[in-house]
């Protein structure tokens, strides 16, 4: 019985696949039983015989396989996150099952968002949605005394003052707020500057630029007007910016260059005509003169070409 068991396990003994106790038993038995020892010898010989014919792939084969694979990889897209989601919707479910916290978070955010939207809608209908307060809608330490739950976009950090029960929480809000104040109010100016550059609504940009033109002495305002002149997609806003900058063409070389740039490259001929009118008093300036010369010769717009020519003709001869 023992010999049968040992013979069945000799192979695994040779392949080093026996547990320690089984191994010990086999070794003990082999020391006592010459027949099983012969079997061990035969198994080892068989093992060695098979090992004699071991081959490695030729280096050339490996090299060419690698090259072939590299070529194929160049035209293959790796399976990434999105592919997994598209082709393996089960992965989604597993992911959620594996991460109950994530599932709970998604649920809470969705639920909170829904309640928040309803709350905003209802309070807007009540005609009393405006909250006068700090205008900074970004992250920060907003001095809001009573943060409305639905308005919290996300909590950035929570820290406790050591040794006290004071907690400071940084959060982002998405509250609609209203700011009121005079044009000289810095807060209002800041908002106008922001609106002039960033608002997606061109009407709002137009109003902001219009208001800013009333205080163009401020260098930041001038910057915003220059920015609007150069980058705004709406020609009306660009025209307003030009108006605001008109009084600075003479004294500020940067403004003058900006207006010249608009004159050369603006896509709207109205804006270009206005720019041309603005630089007229400065036509003795060498930059202005060279632009006018170029326009009078090569510009595609007939009226700008003739206007530039007229302006140049009226110019006193230079020494």
């Amino acid at each position, binding site marked *: 019985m023992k010999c049968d068991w040992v013979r069945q396990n000799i192979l695994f003994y040779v392949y080093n696949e026996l547990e320690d106790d089984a191994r010990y038993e086999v070794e003990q038995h082999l020391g006592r039983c010459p027949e099983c020892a012969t079997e061990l010898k035969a198994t080892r010989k068989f093992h060695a015989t098979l090992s004699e*014919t071991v*081959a490695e792939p030729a280096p050339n084969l490996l090299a060419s396989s690698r090259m072939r694979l590299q070529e194929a990889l160049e035209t293959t897209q790796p399976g990434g996150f999105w592919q997994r989601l598209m082709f393996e919707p089960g992965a989604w479910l597993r992911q959620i099952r594996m991460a109950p916290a994530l599932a709970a978070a998604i649920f809470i955010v969705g639920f909170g968002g829904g309640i928040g939207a309803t709350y905003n809608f209802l309070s807007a209908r009540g005609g009393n949605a405006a909250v006068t307060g700090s205008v900074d809608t970004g992250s920060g330490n907003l001095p809001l005394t009573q943060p409305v739950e639905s308005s919290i976009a996300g909590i950035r950090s929570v820290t406790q003052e050591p040794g006290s029960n004071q907690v400071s929480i940084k959060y982002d809000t998405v509250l609609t707020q209203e700011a009121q104040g005079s044009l000289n109010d810095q807060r209002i100016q800041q908002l106008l500057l922001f609106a002039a550059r960033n608002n997606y609504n061109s009407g709002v940009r137009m109003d902001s630029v219009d208001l800013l033109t009333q205080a163009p002495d401020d260098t930041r305002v001038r910057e915003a007007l220059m920015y609007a002149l150069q980058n705004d997609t709406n020609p009306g806003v660009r025209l307003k910016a030009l108006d605001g900058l008109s009084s600075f063409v003479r004294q500020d070389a940067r403004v003058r260059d900006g207006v010249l740039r608009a004159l050369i490259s603006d896509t709207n001929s109205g804006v270009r005509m206005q720019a041309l009118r603005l630089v007229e008093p400065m036509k003795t300036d060498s930059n202005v003169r060279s632009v006018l010369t170029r326009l009078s010769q090569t510009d595609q717009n007939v009226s700008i070409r003739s206007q530039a020519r007229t302006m140049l003709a009226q110019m006193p001869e230079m020494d």
Partner: protein
Amino acid sequence: MPADSYAVAIPVGEISRPKRAAQDSGNQNPTLYWNMRGSLAAQSNRIDDTSLIREAQQGNRAAFEVLVRHYDQPVLRLALHLTGSESDAQDVYQEAFLKAYKNLGSFRFECSFYTWIYRIVTNLCLDHLRKRNVRKEEAPVAVDASGEEYSRLEQFADARSGANPERDLMRRELGRKIGAALTRLTPRERMVFELKHYHGLKLRTVGEMLNTTEETAKNTLFRATQKLRSALAEMR
């Protein structure tokens, strides 16, 4: 026998050809193979692999290519042994790594990358063996890339031919016999034997790769060796 192409630590970011000092050591004892994969080296390699896999999952192809180089030699050897043809082995190699690349997103570190890639390769090889069994093309004679016939196991002997032509001849003959004996195994027996004997893997790992238990792998190996022994005894 190959030596350890895995126990190589490659810092991530430094995409270079891994040094394989052990690879050329000419170690010919398969049982040493596993032992050489010292657990420490294997562990550090696993850490490297983890970051390589993550990079590759984010679309870094160079990281994937480094991963390929960690594993491709044993993969090609397995494919060559089992298919018996250089061009088939290349096809399996190519298909296995492309499959791995395309499905890398679904690799979730539930098993080692080593097991994962071997699972892909073994499946492809098993398919190949089954198809061949259906076609009854079981001759140990294979065809190389240039279309020339050769005995798979003879060429192995060639690789180590020394100054003794008589010994070479005997080795060639033995190779032919072993090749013929191996064809008597079922694809699964063949695979278990290959992974255990020539790749030195633990039967637990073999079971994992073939989606079965260690016990089943053990029984399969036992059957395979019994068959091989009797086949070789008949031929003597």
